[in-house]
């Protein structure tokens, strides 16, 4: 028994981190084994990032890390030290209007229970940044890292198409 206790790894080590989340800088001391998803949800209260499988397949926990879509359940909070994180709460911010991607999901009925939705919207955000004018096939391929159990994906694909169109238009107006 004594021996067993000694073999039990100790995870009490903590570490100071500084992370910018949705434009706010947070300096916090966290256990080294704390998942980024738990840090965002329970330490910072950004519960819009959901956790669906904790093994990196379902995509519910997708956030942007320095602009890139990552699975926050597969990362430790300490790995985000010094980085910029955007979660679903950062998409429209405090604006009364939704972000064009969110708006497109509303108009095309791209969500039902809403649990996978934040992760999908973050993935779509990254996808459209890379490829502002994707074909349906490209949309479906890019979405294949996110599982939705409610919608059958059809309306999500339509929402992404609509969002892409509007974002391109917005871009042109800016230029």
């Amino acid at each position, binding site marked *: 028994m004594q021996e067993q206790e000694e073999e039990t790894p100790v995870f009490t080590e903590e570490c100071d981190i500084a992370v910018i989340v949705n434009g706010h800088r947070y300096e916090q001391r966290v256990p080294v084994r704390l998942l980024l998803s738990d840090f965002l949800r329970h330490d910072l209260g950004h519960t819009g990032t959901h956790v669906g*499988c904790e093994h990196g397949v379902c995509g519910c926990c997708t956030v942007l890390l320095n602009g890139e879509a990552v699975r926050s359940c597969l990362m430790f909070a300490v790995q985000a030290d010094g980085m910029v994180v955007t979660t679903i709460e950062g998409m429209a911010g405090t604006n009364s209007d939704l972000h064009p991607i969110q708006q497109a999901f509303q108009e095309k009925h791209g969500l039902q229970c809403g649990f996978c939705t934040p992760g999908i919207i973050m993935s779509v955000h990254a996808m459209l940044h890379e490829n502002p004018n994707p074909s349906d096939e490209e949309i479906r391929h890019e979405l294949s890292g996110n599982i939705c159990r409610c919608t059958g994906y059809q*309306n999500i694909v339509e929402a992404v198409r609509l969002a892409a169109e509007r974002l391109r238009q917005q871009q042109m107006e800016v230029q």
Partner: protein
Amino acid sequence: MATRWFGARVQRIEDPRLLRGKGTYVDDIDLPEMLHAGVLRSTHARARILNIDTSAARVLPGVHLVLTASDLGEVLEPSPLLVPHHALTQPRTQLPLALNEVHYVGEAVAMVVADSRYIAEDALDLIDVEYDPLPVVHSLEVASAKDAPLVHADVPDNIAAHLVQVVGDPDTVFASAPHVERETLLMDRGAAMPMECRGVLARWDEYEGMLTCWISTQGPIPIRNGLAAIFHLPEHKVRVIAPDVGGGFGTKIMMFYPEEILTPFAAIRLGRPVKWIEDRREHFISANQERSQFHEVEYAFDDQGILLAVRDKFLHDTGAYTPYGIIVPIITACTLPGPYRLKDYYSEFTVLYTNKVPVSPYRGAGRPHAVFVMERIMDRIAKELNMDRAEVRSRNFISPDEFPWDVGLVYQDGGPTKYDSGNYQAGLDKLKALLDYDNFPAMQAEARKQGCYLGIGIGCYVEGTGIGPYEGAQVRVESDGRVFAATGVTTQGQAHFTTFAQIVADQLGVNPRDVLVTTGDTQAFNWGVGTYASRAATIAGSAMHLAAVKVREKAKRVAADLFEASPDDIELANGKVFVKDAPHRALTLGQVAISANPLRYAYGENARKLMSMNLAGPRPGPALPPERGGPGLEATEFYSPPHGSFASGVHGAIIQVDPKTGMVTFVKYAAVHDCGRVINPIVVEGQVHGGVAQGIGGAFFERLVYDEEGQLINASFMDYLLPTAAEIPPIIVDHVETPSPLNPLGVKGAGEAGVIPVPALFASAIDDALTPFGVRVREMPLHPCRLYELLKESKG
């Protein structure tokens, strides 16, 4: 009054909140002083528990409580049997924690409560359970074998239930039938896999003497009643809330999952809130599953392709327990006749225990199996007689003038299996047009010349929906004119906040956005059952309608008194209540609500306006005359259907099979759906899309694989494949609307429909594509490797 919102493509009211990440799922709620629970689960499918040593876990810093069966006292009771049935002679339900024996891998053995989930899981690792493994029943085949090991030592032959039902005189018909054929058909296990796993948060407030539980469930009211009984609390001192629920699909219409008892137990014991959140690995081995059945079916038909009689005997795998009775196999037996004029039918099923996760309904609930069997029969008749598959179905359809059609069986709710309305041929005609069915053979022949194997399949079904016992609704106009509308059912993505609002808005002449719907909170509405069996829109929707009608009538009476007019001359529209043909004589709905409540201290803008209008002077008698029926504009109504309403549909697909790899891709998918009058087409189409995607998963990707030790060997999303956007094709949806005569809205259920015919039509399409190889599909789900094997077997 003409309806305006009912039937309109209203965008969902709940969306902005969910899109901003502002939904509230159970794990989003963090309470002060909250502790976290973890559950130790059996690693054996069947074993005696010799000893549980929790000493190391109890002393780990940060651990507050370790529970095993012996710590539970009188709470250590088997869960209730939810739906008893005379044929279920050997029911067994689960203890909150296993006592002397475990019966499946994943069964709860101990719970730890600690400062964090991390520490709770550390402590689980320190619990040492000594098991004495026993022989395992891992399949229906083993369960039904002679001298099989027993799942429960006191249940002979592993038989939980046995039921025979006979309609007409099948023996006589079989004896004289021109053609009689036999088939064996197998359906294996799958699971609902909502994206949000289960979860429970319990808070004991000792000042109020109140237990509050947030549970990711489809049935908070029965759970509230059950918890009150278990903990000897008055029902009004237990509040159960199903907040936003991230998908349910049946797996969350259950009571009790052990954690639903253990978490409040720990919270009461410790006097601190306790949260338990299931992880995906746990979900795979502890949330209920479904689908496994083995059918041996005989069928008789004549030279014209008319089905004369069916004799179906099947085995149903209920897993280690029967928490939900024998609802699933009963639904299978009642669904099998489908849209066809079957008058002589023998149905016999045996429910067997296995050492696997317990079975309760998963979207479709016994129906995909039945439709698979019946549609295989239809395909086979077509093949034997060299007839077109759609034509065989048409010849057997019940025609629109034959309703109500009594199948002759007792349905899951104890009522008759009596189809209220339908037009099956209209659905099939629409489907054939959508798929360009008549031109498919030419397309197929052309493709085959290029070495490309295309197949077309169709699947027809009738789905019992909208069953009782009842649901209710309370509708109340508040002082600002917005409408509170509450019901006991829950919402897991079905858009109730929108569809119920549409129903109420039509009656009260307001915008649906001003109808604030509350579901799944026992404090908001005390009565009801839950969301299952495609019943929420039909039953709770009808109750909403009835309550809203009553409120409208009261608003008319109150306004008529104020305006000194007849109630018949009062109208409600655009948030106003006014005298017909004199729209200047108008009040807002909120003002009428205030005047319906004889307050001394009315406050707010509406109240000020109302007073300044000086409408009706002092009246004789009581301020609240009895004929008013109480203060305010409020009504509570209940709806209880005479029996279930029967929705229907026809789906079809064109697929392409690669015989070299066994891979299948969808070229086209179309669904024609009839759920009576449609409240919101956007929502119904979304339900069909999602159902079809789950159906495709259940036909070609998703199969839970247990090894001989009863270990689920694909218990992760890496190995149990949920279809993604890359696998699901675009789905064309069309509607037939045959209103239900049973309820005031004419609606039928739509939630489960999409999933039901998919295995059947998939098998049909594969047979068709692989006709040159002589493949005949007799099992579901398939997967590329299995299809490749079938190809090899057929070649061999």
